[in-house]
């Protein structure tokens, strides 16, 4: 099988997820070629043909142009599969390619079992195997699901590509993530609040436990989206990636975006009323209880030690 890997590049850097695509191809024993909108000064460590469009001309984000460039390469390479990261770049571009080529698209692949891709369902509570009915299949890979066992090596054979298609949208640059606030990456203990705190006043319960354990408090996305906590306290894909000695997840179901930000913690305690919550998959200890009852009792006992 031959697959085309769609590498990612942003703000002058090749994204590490590029090598997850290579790892996926290795896992399914596929021959590969790679596509990248980037620059010649930052090439992936990869042995194979790299179709390279100049991001200074095309723009790092431009779905219309990237789509046309990719369709041109697919016509030349005739792969059976086109592989993206399941990222803001990949999930935007992949459906445009799958529709143009009449291909099935299988999103957020976490595994391949007997040649069949597996994806999460219902906030990762369930798994689903999906069979493609088309000759060409487009897949997007969940961040972190596939990894190389060794450091990547190699030098690509660069094939330059360009297009003269006119863009549908105007991309005018980036806005940096909000700076300032708390640096959770230095905390040895983090106690995080999730949707289970139910109302903003209950954040004090989480702060109380964080204080008793000599740590900082963090939050999951829904808590930050509701403006109950500032963005600098958000743990996850669009917030901070942390690796404390102890991570206590209170009322956090464990969406993949959150897990990606905290799964390197040394010891994980989850407090949740739902015994089946996906957070249980990464927790060393799951306390099945209502955080609003349990956390104040725990805090009081810790404070009187």
């Amino acid at each position, binding site marked *: 099988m031959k697959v085309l890997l769609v590498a990612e590049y942003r703000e002058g850097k090749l994204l590490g997820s590029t090598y997850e695509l290579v790892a996926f191809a290795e896992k399914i024993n596929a021959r590969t070629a790679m596509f990248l909108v980037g620059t010649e000064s930052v090439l992936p460590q990869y042995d194979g043909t790299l179709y390279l469009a100049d991001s200074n001309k095309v723009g790092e984000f431009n779905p219309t142009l990237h789509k046309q460039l990719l369709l041109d390469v697919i016509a030349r390479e005739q792969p059976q599969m086109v592989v993206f990261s399941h990222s803001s770049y990949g*999930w935007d571009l992949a459906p445009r390619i799958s529709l143009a080529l009449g291909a099935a698209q299988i999103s957020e692949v976490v595994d391949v079992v007997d040649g069949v891709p597996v994806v999460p*369902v219902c*906030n990762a509570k369930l798994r689903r195997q999906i069979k*493609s009915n088309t000759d060409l299949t487009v897949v997007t890979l969940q961040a972190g699901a596939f990894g190389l066992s060794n450091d990547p090596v190699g030098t690509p054979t660069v094939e330059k590509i360009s297009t003269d298609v006119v863009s549908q949208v*105007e*991309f005018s640059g980036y806005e940096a993530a909000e700076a300032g606030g708390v640096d959770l990456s230095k905390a040895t*203990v983090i106690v995080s609040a999730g949707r289970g705190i139910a109302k903003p006043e209950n954040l004090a319960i989480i702060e109380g436990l964080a204080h008793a354990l000599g740590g900082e408090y963090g939050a999951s996305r829904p808590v930050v989206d509701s403006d109950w906590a500032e963005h600098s306290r958000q743990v996850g894909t669009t917030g901070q990636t942390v690796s404390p*000695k102890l991570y206590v997840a209170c009322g956090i179901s464990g969406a993949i975006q959150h897990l990606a930000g905290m799964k390197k913690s040394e010891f994980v305690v989850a407090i949740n009323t739902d015994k089946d919550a996906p957070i249980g*998959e990464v927790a060393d200890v*799951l306390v099945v209880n209502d955080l609003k009852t349990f956390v104040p009792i725990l805090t009081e006992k810790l404070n009187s030690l």
Partner: protein
Amino acid sequence: MKILVCIKQVPDMESKFKVNPEGTWYDNVDLAWRMNEYDEYAVEQAVQLKGQVGDADLTVFSIGPNRVKETMKKALAMGCDHGVHVADDDSYQKDPFQIASIIAGFAKDKGFDLIFTGMQSQDRGSAQVGVLVAELLNLPCISTIVDFAYLDGKVSVKRELEGGGRALVSCNAPVLVTCQLGLNVPRYPTLPNIMKAKKKEILSIEVAELLNVTARQETSKLYFPEKKGGGLVLEGDAGDLADQLIKILRDKTSVLA
């Protein structure tokens, strides 16, 4: 201005799920149903846009069995003008391409200036349907927006990127945008608006009138993931649990030293 917002009814994600007898989807009995969370942001943004431009007609669209009308009523109570329901008891078996084809089949000759969708659904989570609808209608699409502004026919948005940064993108209407969590603060329908929504029209269309393509993929198996071994599950009285946990933290970590 004509605005369309597409919503999906999904189970509450805290539900106890069971696999259906065919082993291809979750069993849909004994579930609490609600609006897909991403779509709540889409509805709110559409209602805000209507409020901003004044002279606008806002349609909420959904596909599924009769029960999805309950979720559509919430969107009507939030401020949509009327609903279009595509009746389909088997919508859960349709793939993203078929769902997008149904929506595009409805929208293609209606002249919508703005189409809002969620960036993905909470149950299937393909993140494909909104982008596919735009491509089928040959409209520009900007996905994963966390900020939206409209002025004189031009849409300016921020797309959320990994790491918390944002890409600044603009485009002239007509355009489709897919909405990410945190885009706005979805309103709670007020009681008077819930009463008013009861009088708003929901037009029903049979799915066969809009669907003329076959699925490009199918579910071969749905199942629960294997639990990671080693994790200890503690249940019981909160006071006892706290004592047990403190002992574990003493034994296994250095944070109480």
